[in-house]
């Protein structure tokens, strides 16, 4: 522990020295402030501030809408741009530091079609960030979606380099990485299981979300802990101008959101909730064997913020969601099987602005994820709880040194508690008593990181972003640590006391990217990142399930280490209304885990003896074309990639494709605004089937037919393709009330895409075996009514 603190001190000292180095004393003044939406008072994230007279100078607003630009004394035209909003030009004679808060109005798309902004919106070309995409919830709202539920996790799967886990699900893989390698943040709190209803919906209620940024590569130093991607989701702050109620009625779920100002716009809050009701329909009309099945979820989002002074603003955000799924063929058989799970997160933040150049955000974050497997019912119930709980403290500084350097630095300290499996048994359970002794001790760990990064404009054609993150992970007592012999039996065990360090890992994580600006329409970017990940998700099922267990690094389990190099060419056409890019990447992943054959991962205190370790690598090329304005908007993305794994003890030591090795992946999204009232949209997805292990023969043991496998993931599921279509009909729109109807059909031509394939005896002919494909969703129509007043 002492070591960490001294390390922290040294780093802070280093930051100070670097900071002083940048302070070159010229006669410069700073204009800074907050950018907001004129109508709702929501802050605008990533809005661009440019100085017409100084083409090199510019800034983007940060996650709290704060911007800061330093220029020599003089008279300038400052131009404020944000996509979908009218650009604001303002002339300012700057003789002293100036606080200038801006409100931008949404571009009216109702009558005058498409005002092509005179200002260049070519941030995708000139920024130092590559392999990243920001989706604004407003921008994606007309994309046809599964059951009419806008779902950001499904929308990002339409971007290059990102694929889903299986049909209709929200889980995702980025550039060949694992599903556990995505850092999913909701207002800075980690969300460990982002899915509802066995993965078919995401936990993120779009009504409460402002925007989403996914980083697939070139991950900035301020993020760490997951090696494949960062999905940074920001909640709406709530309308600070007036009380507003919005909601939606859908076939599967209904939503309601209330937002209002606090103390005359000094603050605001938003509360948003939704609940599904499919189970009610199933009970009433469903087939008999499903009537005892219950499946539902609900969730709430809450956020409030308050401006304490012109320099201080506090935010409180929270999320709570719960899922329940019970499958019970007949209540009388007492063989009920159920899973329920839920996330809860809370973030308390305090923004403070020191002068014009230094912005600080302090956060206290709590996150809790728990899942329960329930077997039996009533008295005979047997329950296993697994989960993870975090408390963390985070300090993030943004230092706008001058118009060439933006330095970000800070630290994060997180305390994890892991619940690998806690058993509770009711009296009459037959399976319970023998397993009661299998409750597994909780595990604890401390994860710390300090980072610094500099976004450096070297000259008119070169931008660099260099960063360094130092991360540490220490597992601490109380815990009993086992070591194992070759057979996986416990060889030795040692007990650790409260907070006694067990094992520490240190990660030195350099991050770098460079942008070579060819002209204002094109650039070449390259990036490298090295990231350590101290958690692994254990899942030995064919599909991802909510009972998958997060395990921390230990003496046996080593951190996942990811290295990625990426290079890309970016080119805009037609006055920046069409963005195109080609990116290539190569990624390696060390210390990947898999399982010994027949591994028992659930409620097993010696689970570490069931793991095998290997490596992975992935490479590919991504093509992306996006049309941002006009009657027709949308994008086409195509990815050609491979992802491999190699384990000494699996597949005879030969490399094999990972399940998510989707070679060809094409997505097309089109939104056509026929007139202000009517919008048509369509999505088409086509990709190679997942890699799968199928038998290449069979044999008999006793009277059981056994499949004979010759190689791991040597086969492919059938090709996946699907077309979704949607129509949005705008109802009457007044100052006080607006509404729309959304009709959509998921899988419009009824393609039977495989969810799974099982190999089983032919029920009609016991001398034969057959392959049976399970497909889940064909022609899922939906209708949603949305309103706002």
């Amino acid at each position, binding site marked *: 522990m002492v070591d960490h603190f001294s390390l922290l001190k040294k780093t802070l000292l280093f930051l100070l020295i670097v900071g002083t180095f940048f302070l070159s004393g010229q006669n410069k003044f700073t204009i800074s402030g907050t950018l907001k939406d004129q109508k709702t008072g929501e802050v605008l994230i990533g809005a661009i501030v440019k100085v017409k007279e100084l083409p090199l100078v510019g800034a983007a607003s940060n996650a709290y809408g704060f911007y800061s630009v330093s220029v020599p004394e003089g008279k300038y035209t400052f131009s404020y741009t944000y996509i979908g909003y009218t650009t604001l030009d303002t002339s300012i004679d700057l003789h002293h530091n100036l606080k200038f808060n801006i409100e931008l109005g949404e571009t009216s798309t109702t009558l005058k079609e498409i005002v092509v902004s005179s200002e260049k919106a070519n941030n995708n070309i000139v920024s130092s960030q590559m392999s990243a995409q920001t989706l604004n919830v407003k921008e994606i709202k007309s994309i046809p979606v599964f059951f009419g539920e806008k779902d950001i996790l499904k929308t990002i799967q339409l971007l290059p380099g990102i694929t889903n886990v299986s049909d209709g699900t929200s889980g995702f893989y980025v550039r060949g990485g694992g599903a556990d390698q995505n850092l999913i943040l909701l207002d800075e709190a980690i969300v460990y299981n982002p899915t509802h209803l*066995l993965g078919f919906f995401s936990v993120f209620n779009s009504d409460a979300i402002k925007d989403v940024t996914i980083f697939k590569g070139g991950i900035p130093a301020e993020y760490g802990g997951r090696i494949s991607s960062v999905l940074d989701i920001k909640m709406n702050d709530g309308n600070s101008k007036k009380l507003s109620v919005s909601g939606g009625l859908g076939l599967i779920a209904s939503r309601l959101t209330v937002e209002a100002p606090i103390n005359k716009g000094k603050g605001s809050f938003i509360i948003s909730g939704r609940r599904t009701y499919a189970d009610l329909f199933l009970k009433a009309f469903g087939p008999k064997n499903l009537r005892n099945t219950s499946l539902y979820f609900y969730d709430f989002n809450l956020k409030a913020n308050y401006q304490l002074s012109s320099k201080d603003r506090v935010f409180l955000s929270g999320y709570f969601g719960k899922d329940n799924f019970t499958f019970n063929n007949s209540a009388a058989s007492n063989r009920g099987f159920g899973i329920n799970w839920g996330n809860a997160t809370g973030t308390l933040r305090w923004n403070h602005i020191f002068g014009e150049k230094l912005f600080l955000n302090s956060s206290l974050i709590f996150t809790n994820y728990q899942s329960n497997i329930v077997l039996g019912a009533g008295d005979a119930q047997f329950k296993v709880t697994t989960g993870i709980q975090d408390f963390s403290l985070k300090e993030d500084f943004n230092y706008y040194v001058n118009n060439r350097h933006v330095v970000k630095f800070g630290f994060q300290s997180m305390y994890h508690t892991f619940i690998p499996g806690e058993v509770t048994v009711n009296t009459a359970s037959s399976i319970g008593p023998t397993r009661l002794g299998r409750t597994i001790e909780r595990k604890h760990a401390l994860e710390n990181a300090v980072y610094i990064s500099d976004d450096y404009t070297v000259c008119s054609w070169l931008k660099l972003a260099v960063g360094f993150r130092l991360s540490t992970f220490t597992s601490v007592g109380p815990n009993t640590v086992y070591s194992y012999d070759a057979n996986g039996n416990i060889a030795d065990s040692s007990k650790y006391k409260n907070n006694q360090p067990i094992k520490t890992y240190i990660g030195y994580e350099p991050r770098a990217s460079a942008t070579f600006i060819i002209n204002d329409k094109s650039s070449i970017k390259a990036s490298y990142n090295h990231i350590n990940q101290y958690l692994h998700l254990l899942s030995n099922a064919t599909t991802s399930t909510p009972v998958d267990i997060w395990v921390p690094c230990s003496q046996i389990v080593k951190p996942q280490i990811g290295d990625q190099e990426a290079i890309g060419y970016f080119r805009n056409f037609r006055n920046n209304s069409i963005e195109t890019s080609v990116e290539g990447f190569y990624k390696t992943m060390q210390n990947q885990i898999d399982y010994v054959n*027949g591994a028992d991962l659930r409620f097993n205190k010696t689970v570490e003896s069931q793991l095998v370790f290997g490596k992975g690598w992935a490479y590919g090329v991504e093509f992306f074309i996006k049309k941002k304005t006009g009657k027709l908007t949308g994008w086409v993305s195509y990815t050609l990639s491979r992802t491999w794994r190699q384990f000494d003890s699996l597949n005879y030591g030969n490399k094999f494709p990972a399940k998510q090795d989707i070679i060809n992946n094409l997505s097309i999204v089109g939104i056509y605004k026929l007139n202000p009232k009517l919008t048509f949209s369509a999505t088409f997805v086509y990709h190679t089937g997942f890699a799968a292990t199928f038998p290449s023969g069979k044999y008999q043991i006793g009277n059981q037919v056994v499949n004979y496998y010759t190689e791991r993931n040597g086969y492919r599921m059938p090709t996946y393709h699907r077309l979704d279509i949607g129509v949005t009909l705008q109802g009457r729109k007044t100052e006080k009330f607006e509404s729309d109807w959304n009709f959509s059909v998921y899988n419009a031509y009824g393609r039977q895409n495989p969810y799974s394939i099982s190999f089983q005896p032919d029920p009609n002919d016991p001398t034969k075996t057959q392959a049976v494909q399970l497909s889940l969703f064909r022609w899922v129509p939906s209708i949603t009514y949305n309103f706002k007043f």
Partner: protein
Amino acid sequence: MRKSRYFILLIPAVIFSLYACEKVVTLDLKNADKQVVVQGNVTNMPGPYIVNLNYTIPYYSSNTFPVITGAQVNIYDDAGNSEALTETTQGVYKTASLIGTPGRKYTIQIVANGNTYSGISAMALPLPIDSFLIQPSIRNSIVTGYRVTCKFTDPVGVGNHYRVLITSNDTANLGQNNSRIVSDKLTDGKQLSVSFRTKLISTDTVKILLQCIDKSTYDFYNTLQGAVGNSSISQFLAALPANPTNNISNKGLGYFAAYAVTTNTKVIP
């Protein structure tokens, strides 16, 4: 209000499309080279002990598994005894004189079509059955079947493995799940209890077999499930498909098991 009527009409449509749809598909599966499958047992009961040798077949073939004839099969123990087995029926090899003895280690060696396969299994000591219980399962005051329980006490020291089976003259009502494997990894030295739910009826005979197996046999049965066909719904939680872990060398399939067995038979009152 017309809109709300459409809304209601759409509900059954949604439920219809919610149905998971299963269909039999014909996949282009490779036909792997035929591989040797061994099923061999040596027990503490009087012989003959039987070794079956078969070949694998393509997945879409009818379930007739070709036998391997003309193989040389030998079983050795670690006390210097050995015997060459005789092929009594095609593909079925039997011992004549070998006496299985608990505590000894057995080795099988098979030469078939010029390839040699071998396997080692140690015969554990037999264990008495403490109790054998047959209890009626009653629901709404009707006997719906019987629950068969076997209790035995694990000796102190980790590393004991068991396979408990039940057999009956009434195979139809015995049900599918009539064998279970148990390891003492987490319950060393305790009394263990294994129960089976059956739909057996009064006057049926039920026999319980407590096999003390070695780790390789335990691993084989423990991993067998990953290679046996699963119904689709259980795939939500099914293990990844893989060949069972076994003790036959040279990529041979199947198992060679030496085990000691204790039995008890009862007639359901």
